């Protein structure tokens, strides 16, 4: 049996910059990078040597930098409404809270599969919204709420400020009886934010 050149084994703890081998031995997988023909780790984690496919990758032990990606489900607060878009301040990606925020745009045509008359019928400033990232071109996060688990999770009455309760496809205020339209998520009022 030929001697393996690398002394590395699977499951070893490595820190960023740890040498993992050379490109003649392995192809570089997740969590690694190549510089001048050598493979190094770029995050802390445990090594994973796939000897069948000759790939070295890192199983991350750190949560990693959290940035919205296409397809990720994000939660945020509606900051303001423009003519046909809502600006949403994203503070949560998946279930991970961010230390800062990212801004997202919700365009009226991405609110629902059916026709929406006005963006004001979908959400209002201050609402907590769950949405999916559909594009990150030029680092502008375009969001969509066209799914039954996406949409407004929590809203306040625009007249008296009381928490709104779901009433079929609308929301009503138990305090003043005001009836408002929203693009409601299936989890409306149940998700803890």
């Amino acid at each position, binding site marked *: 049996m030929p001697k393996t050149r690398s002394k590395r084994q699977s499951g070893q703890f490595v*820190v960023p*910059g740890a040498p993992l081998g050379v490109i003649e031995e392995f192809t570089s997988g997740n969590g690694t990078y190549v510089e001048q023909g050598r493979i190094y780790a770029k995050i802390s984690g445990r090594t994973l040597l796939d000897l069948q496919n000759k790939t070295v990758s890192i199983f991350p032990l750190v949560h990693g*930098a*959290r*940035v919205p990606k296409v397809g990720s489900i994000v939660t945020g607060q509606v900051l303001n409404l423009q003519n046909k878009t809502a600006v949403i301040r994203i503070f949560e990606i998946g279930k991970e809270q961010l230390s800062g925020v990212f801004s997202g745009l919700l365009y009226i045509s991405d609110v629902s599969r059916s026709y929406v008359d006005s963006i004001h019928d979908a959400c209002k400033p201050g609402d907590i919204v769950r949405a999916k990232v559909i594009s990150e071109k030029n680092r502008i996060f375009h969001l969509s709420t066209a799914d039954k688990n996406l949409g407004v999770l929590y809203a306040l009455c625009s007249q008296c400020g009381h928490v709104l309760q779901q009433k079929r496809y609308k929301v009503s205020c138990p305090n003043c009886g005001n009836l408002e339209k929203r693009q409601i998520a299936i989890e409306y009022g149940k998700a803890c934010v």
Partner: protein
Amino acid sequence: MTKKEAKMIDKDGVRADGRKPDELRPTKIEVGVLNNADGSAYIEQGKNKILAAVYGPHEVHPKHLALPHRSRLRCRYHMAPFSVDERKSPAPSRREVELSKVIREALEPSIFLEYYPRTSIDLFIEVLQAHGGTRCAGITVASLALADAGIPMRDLTAACAAGKVEGQLVLDLTDQEDKKGEADVPLAYMPNLDAVTLLQMDGQLTLEEFEKTISLSLEGCKQLYLLQKEALKVKYVAVKEDIEE
């Protein structure tokens, strides 16, 4: 002057704090000390006590500072008012502004900033107690905080100063040694890539002394790198045990 000043190095080559010329100060590093930060680390190097925290990557405010091709690393080196003998004004001094820039430039080559365009990574280095060599200890600890934040990095950066005190070349100068000594050479180094990212010199050295000083501080950086690795390992091995329980 009648009284002879106490010497920094005695005839056996032992320094005022009992160290050998090529010995680092006793160093303790801890990773992940702050809950609210994305990544954090704490270092005690001799009498230095420094805390580093990383937030991000996140959106840049004000927005015109965002760079289209890479993330912006924003670094703040700050000394607490109680970190030195005489109260330091908490406002950023000229020295702190310069050190922030120098530290940022020492760490930038180690980070894959191009992975997160139009975002910023905010780095805060808070010196709680200063006793010479805080810029180097700051770089060492900031690099760990970045690694703890899970930001992809080319290598860890370790930094250490060396210099000349009473005609002798010594490693890791303290405050007194720095002030009374003839020269001080802080150096930051990425051990796996064998790259120097910071090199400054204050004072005068001959070319020969300069080369010796550099190799001395490189050795110091390599020792610190081992401590950095150990600190990260301690954190993540402990995390794993928590899960297994």
